[in-house]
């Protein structure tokens, strides 16, 4: 009787460990999924503002990036690719960067962003729960975060994004 209990508990642990192994997504989930966007109030690159009022009636992608971030260079091409396949607005949030470097960077690689907010101190990053750039958020017409991508947006991620956007448009 004692041993039956022991064996059942062990079996339970093993089954769980087995399914735990096959877990696909190892990254930290955002707590903002299906919630309104967090605080944002930034100066943008062209001396404008990027704030709550920019998130209305439109499906948007918010992309945290910086010129010092190497994976962001890889991601950059895919942002253009995404725009080619689906012309949505992409807001860039320039995370803890040097404006001069940023301008050179954009000149060299092109600018896929409709607007770039400057997050000099990184506080907007913290408010959005960003842990390591690049990170991107998909936001629906009502300013609700619908999807988050940790790390580089690549071909696979674009496919997922397109599907999500399609379902939001309905």
């Amino acid at each position, binding site marked *: 009787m004692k*041993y*039956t209990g*022991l064996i059942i508990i*062990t079996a339970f*642990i093993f089954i769980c*460990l087995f399914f735990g*192994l096959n*877990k696909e997504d190892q990254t930290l989930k955002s707590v903002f999924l299906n919630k309104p966007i967090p605080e944002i109030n930034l100066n943008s690159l062209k001396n404008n503002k990027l704030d709550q009022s920019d998130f209305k009636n439109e499906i948007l992608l918010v992309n945290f990036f910086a010129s010092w971030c190497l994976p962001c260079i890889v991601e950059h091409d895919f942002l253009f690719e995404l725009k080619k396949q689906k012309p949505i607005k992409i807001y860039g949030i320039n995370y803890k960067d040097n404006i001069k470097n940023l301008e050179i960077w954009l000149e060299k690689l092109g600018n896929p962003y409709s607007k770039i907010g400057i997050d000099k101190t990184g506080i907007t990053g913290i408010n959005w729960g960003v842990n390591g750039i690049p990170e991107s958020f998909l936001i629906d017409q009502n300013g609700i975060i619908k999807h988050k991508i940790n790390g580089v947006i690549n071909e696979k991620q674009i496919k997922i994004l397109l599907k999500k956007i399609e379902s939001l448009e309905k």
Partner: protein
Amino acid sequence: MVAIIGNISLIFAILLSFYQFLNIRNINKIRVLNPDRNISLQFFFILTAFFSLMFAYVVSDFSILNVYQNSHTAKPLLYKITGVWGNHEGSMLLWVLVLVFFGFLISRYDKRLDLPYKTLTLSFQSLITFIFLLFILLSSNPFVVISPTPVNGQDLNPLLQDPGLAFHPPNLYIGYVGLSIVFSFTIARFYKGSFDASWAKLIKPWVLLSWSFLTLGISLGSWWAYYELGWGGFWFWDPVENASLMPWLCATALLHSTLVLEKRNTLKKWTILLAFLSFSFSLIGTFLVRSGIITSVHAFASDPTRGVFILMICAFFIFSSFILLAKKSGSIKEEKLISPISKEGTIIFNNLLMVAMLLTIFIGTIYPIFLEMFTGDQISVGPPYFNLTSTLIMGPAILIMSFAPMINWKKDDLVGLLSRLKTILFLSLLVTFIFFYINFQGPIIALVGIFLAAWLFFGTLFNFFEKTKYLKKLKNLNKTFLGMIVAHLGVAIFIAGVTGSTLWKVEKIKTLKVGEKVLLNNYSLNFDKIKKIRGKNYIGHEAEFNLYKKNKFIKTLKPQKRFYPVQEFPTTEAAIYSRGLSDIYIAMSEPIDNSWIFRFHYSPLTPWIWIGSIMAFIGGILSFSHRIFKRI
């Protein structure tokens, strides 16, 4: 060429191990085939495979994928050699090498065993070897060849290029794998012989050996983390660290319960279960480290498909052993009841607390995985949880540990015991008070730690004096008793070290320019120089600090920040000035403009952590050598 020799050796070894396992069928025949030659050949072939891999590393043979992925021509020779087990495939090969080495030791040197029992034990050991070799050949072969041969390799993770970590895995593996032989001894006993005092005597030296090397391996790893990871702690409750601590706790419980079985012929089923669990937790430890199921600082090698394989191996051994025990438990007869005030009584409490600690760590480690699976919520279980639970569980264990060795078997009288404890209590309170007087700043819990350390220390010493009639009768000493005394004193010193290091540590993080200084307790540290350095496979910066105590120059400390270009990886080499009673610790961090960030620690009693661990290791080995030389 190397790949061919390696592969052929592995294939021979796997065939031999399978053949040896099949011998189980013949065990009831009158003439049992002696396993010695088979076991020696297994050892020989695995050794050949291992050395051919090592050879490939030393000559930088990049035609072998494993060498290409983990080595580089510019790497120092020492790390070319230790790089063999700095990766998944090589470390699994080392694992099997230790496995067959233990089989070899038993077959050649353990003369206490009769032939059928020995054959049976070694056949089960061969089954373990067979399964692990299968795993290596199917999913982790270190002898995979690439073509064309690359010009240079990708180098080893720089964190692993360090003497502390280079020798940490072999020690740990001797510990883990030593528990496999205990496992085989136990399984074999179900078919030949009974679980009596003689069985306890058979497994005891091997439990001791495994326990000692686990102790050494874990403390080497912790020492490495202390000076290499650059944040001045010695234990982080990281899942991988927990994975090594769990078999250690289980082996500690087993070590003590075999004593009861040996002397009192009881706790049989419990001891069997512990023998199974010890090996099971070694396997689970391997699973946690190798599968990548848990994100961890140290999870260097991870691959889910391998994870499934190792999980299947774990499940196979754990379930077959549990089911065996469940089926046969009816035939194992336990002796008598036990009095709580007796040595066996205290050992039962020891076992309860060790297992409670073990299960708490296990639950804490896997809880986040389970919670996420069932609810999708992500949480962390970190040091605050483990520190709290371990203090609460291990505190009482230490309280008992002090007087447990003094109590008689069977029954002791409480009054006599308490009168002896008075002296110990007085001395430990005195020490606690002295500490309170010298250093009254720390939290109260620190005094509890010091009290426990002193309580254990004086209790053990008291026992030593009593037994030797105050050193008049030193011939009463045997190595087993002496080993116990040394190990228990080691634990006392270790506890004092942990207390000082965690609760009395003074820590400063400062940004300094050359010429500035920092004050730390009675010391002053002058930042005199910074220079560029260049090693064989790294570049970096070295700072020079002159350490003064009350204007008297003591020593120049040189912390380094290194960068390994091949792996694009920075490392911190802390500079430590150790006086036996305390450490001054400097770790160098990032530069900001013209200044650098440094982390300074004054950690009192920290060296005692390692002094205590080494004493525990020596104690275990003393006890092991007594048993092994006397009876083998």
